């Protein structure tokens, strides 16, 4: 066992994938000698040469478009969009071609490619550099959308994404790049399309993914101190969505809160709330609540902390879940109390 940050685990996953499969190529803006803005590709050009890990021009549409061509011809390209919003110039390629090729060719041409995108906020990185763009991709049939929350998952999910016969949008929560954990690499965790229960509890299910999993775990710990046992589900895969794991958990607890950084309106939480309601209607004690970013363009660093879901806001949502007795009776907490905490 050794300690790895998420960034290092991703780097190791790329290195092992390059070594395991000669058809894997890695390219994007400054992923070569510079090693990427977040150093995820550090040292790969030196180890595997410029033929397999190289810099591209500043042309996201071109990067994704050429990756489609490479994949059609039997390569397994792993390309990087330097930041979440830098992926928007490539949006047309992703939606119109990456997502549709297998269907369009009636299964004759699949695209085994991975688009890595550092996403989300929390590092004071302003507009274009703090976006949570997952819903654009999750809404598009034909794509897998995956996001790790731990170094072990970062390694395992990226390896699996590269091996997958279909295109995967691999979202890396940039605020967790430096989060460390003891991992025995190479590691394989649960399959890519499964959600996992990170913490068990009986009172409420907190559903999160990527950057918010750690925050939600923190909130669950704080809730425990107040007598509420929260279960935490880490979705890992946004598309496909693991109904089974989520449904089983909410049926046990009867209450659910979905947490994400992205704007709440039309966000991933809306889809989860709808699905949970459909699957668990007769088990629910309260409406499914969402805690997310506000419906505003990404705010400047000075105001970022208010925009992003915090432990307090998650606890505030838990308080609003129409509790009658149980843990609230034993603790001084009453519904709505959190609202006084405000920001």
């Amino acid at each position: 066992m050794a300690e790895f940050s998420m960034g290092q685990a991703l780097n190791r996953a790329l290195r092992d994938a390059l070594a395991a499969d000669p058809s894997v190529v890695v390219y994007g803006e400054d992923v070569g000698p510079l090693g990427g803005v977040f150093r995820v590709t550090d040292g790969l050009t030196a180890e595997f040469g410029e033929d397999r890990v190289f810099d591209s021009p500043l042309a996201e549409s071109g990067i994704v478009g050429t990756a489609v061509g490479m994949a059609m011809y039997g390569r397994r390209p792993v390309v990087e969009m330097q930041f979440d919003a830098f992926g928007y110039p490539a949006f047309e390629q992703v939606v119109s071609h990456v997502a549709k090729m297998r269907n369009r060719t009636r299964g004759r041409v699949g695209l085994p490619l991975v688009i890595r995108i550092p996403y989300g906020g929390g590092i004071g990185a302003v507009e274009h550099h703090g976006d949570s763009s997952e819903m654009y991709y999750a809404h598009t049939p034909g794509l897998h959308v995956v996001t790790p929350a731990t170094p072990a998952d970062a390694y395992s999910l990226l390896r699996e994404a590269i091996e997958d016969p279909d295109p995967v949008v691999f979202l890396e929560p940039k605020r967790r790049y430096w989060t460390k954990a003891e991992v025995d690499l190479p590691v394989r965790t649960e399959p890519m399309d499964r959600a996992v229960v990170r913490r068990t509890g009986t009172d409420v299910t907190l559903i999160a993914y990527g950057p918010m999993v750690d925050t939600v775990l923190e909130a669950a710990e704080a809730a425990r101190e107040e007598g509420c046992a929260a279960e935490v589900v880490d979705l890992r895969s946004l598309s496909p969505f693991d109904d089974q794991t989520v449904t089983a958990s909410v049926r046990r607890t009867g209450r659910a809160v979905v947490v994400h950084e992205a704007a709440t309106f039309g966000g991933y939480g809306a889809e989860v709330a709808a699905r949970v309601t459909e699957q668990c209607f007769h088990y629910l004690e309260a409406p499914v609540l969402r805690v997310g970013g506000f419906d505003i363009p990404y705010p400047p660093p000075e105001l970022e902390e208010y925009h992003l879901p915090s432990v307090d806001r998650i606890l505030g949502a838990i308080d609003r879940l129409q509790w009658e007795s149980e843990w609230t009776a034993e603790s001084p907490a009453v519904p709505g109390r959190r609202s006084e905490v405000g920001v």
Partner: protein
Amino acid sequence: MRVLPRQLDQPLLRPAVEPGVGAHALASPEQQATAPAFSGSTGPEEADSYVERHTMADTAKPKGGGTTRSTGGRRRSRKDSPSNIADEQPKVLLEYYRQMLLIRRFEERTGQAYTQARIGGYCHLNLGEEATIVGLMTALQERDYLFTNYRDHGYAIGKGMSPRSVMAELYGRSTGAAKGWGGSMHMYDTETRMLGGYGIVGGQLPLATGAALAISYRGGDEVVMCQMGDGTTNIGAWHESLNIASLWNLPVIFVVINNYTGMGTPVEASSAEPELYKRGSAFRIEGVRVDGRDVLAVRDAAANLVERARSEQRPFLLEATSYRMKGHSVVDPAKYRTKEQVEEARSNDPITAFEATLEKAGILTEEAKQEIADSVREEVADAAEFAENSPHPEVSTLFDYTYATPVANESRRMPADPVFAE
């Protein structure tokens, strides 16, 4: 509508650039030989030979293709400025010097404040580009518009924004140009017609082209200047914008600041045609390359193109070669640069060079130098102090400008969310 496709009988190639202005400033003999359309006497009747000569001579790739990493010989040696220093008004020259120094000291202070975590977000400095900025901004009239990329602090000051509002914006304070919401990459001021720094590479090009379209549409006589870095010439928006600008005869100057490095990738490794001023040829846009270290050369080249864009109503491409003194952004250690390259950048400091020229000409006395240094130091200190003491943006402003009306914002808040509980 005024913007009709070009008439077929209109000359497709541009008249020669006037000798002594602009084009020759950096054009070495071999450039003159290989790029007649940009600096020679090509006329309409020579169109075919131009195309042929260009395609044959200029499109041959260097051996090794796009991944050539050699750095030798791609920078031109310094030429004497086209303008004779003796023909210039000393007062004007000293003002250029002062502006350059102001940007230098402002950016040094910015870098310092950023490393002290007083400035958030990302931060890209204009260190080493002072002569280019002052030359370009001098060439613009007050009524002309400016769009830039994210490396925009010096341009904002050069276009007339106060160092106070720029520094306060960098600090993210509510007194900043964009009330603290824009930050380093998004300086914006309608009054001085600085229509924005833009954080996405290439994002500003279609916008600037659109501004020029608006000017053309209403028959105005303003010109739009659109600044970008060398890496931008590879993104789709570049091709779309230059095509539209040329097709519809729009008064826009595309200015490429070529510091030979797109973040960490050398220009030869990203541009199939690394002589960027030639890249307008696909759109029949005349391109000029100028030594960005020379404030007078930049001014002359830019002024010439700006006035021609104004009178002839068509776009131009200006490439200013430049040295980036530091990494791509403040946090970039620039490990991809060799010691020699760093040293080369240092020895090509545009301010030191201009200072020496002015001293040699007897224009910059020891006394004046001290006076300018003092006043610049004071102005920067004042800007920083103003920023330090300015209020932070209020949390209650989070929803203020997402839509024109506050009602719409209210309706999109999360139901029962307690963030702004009374």
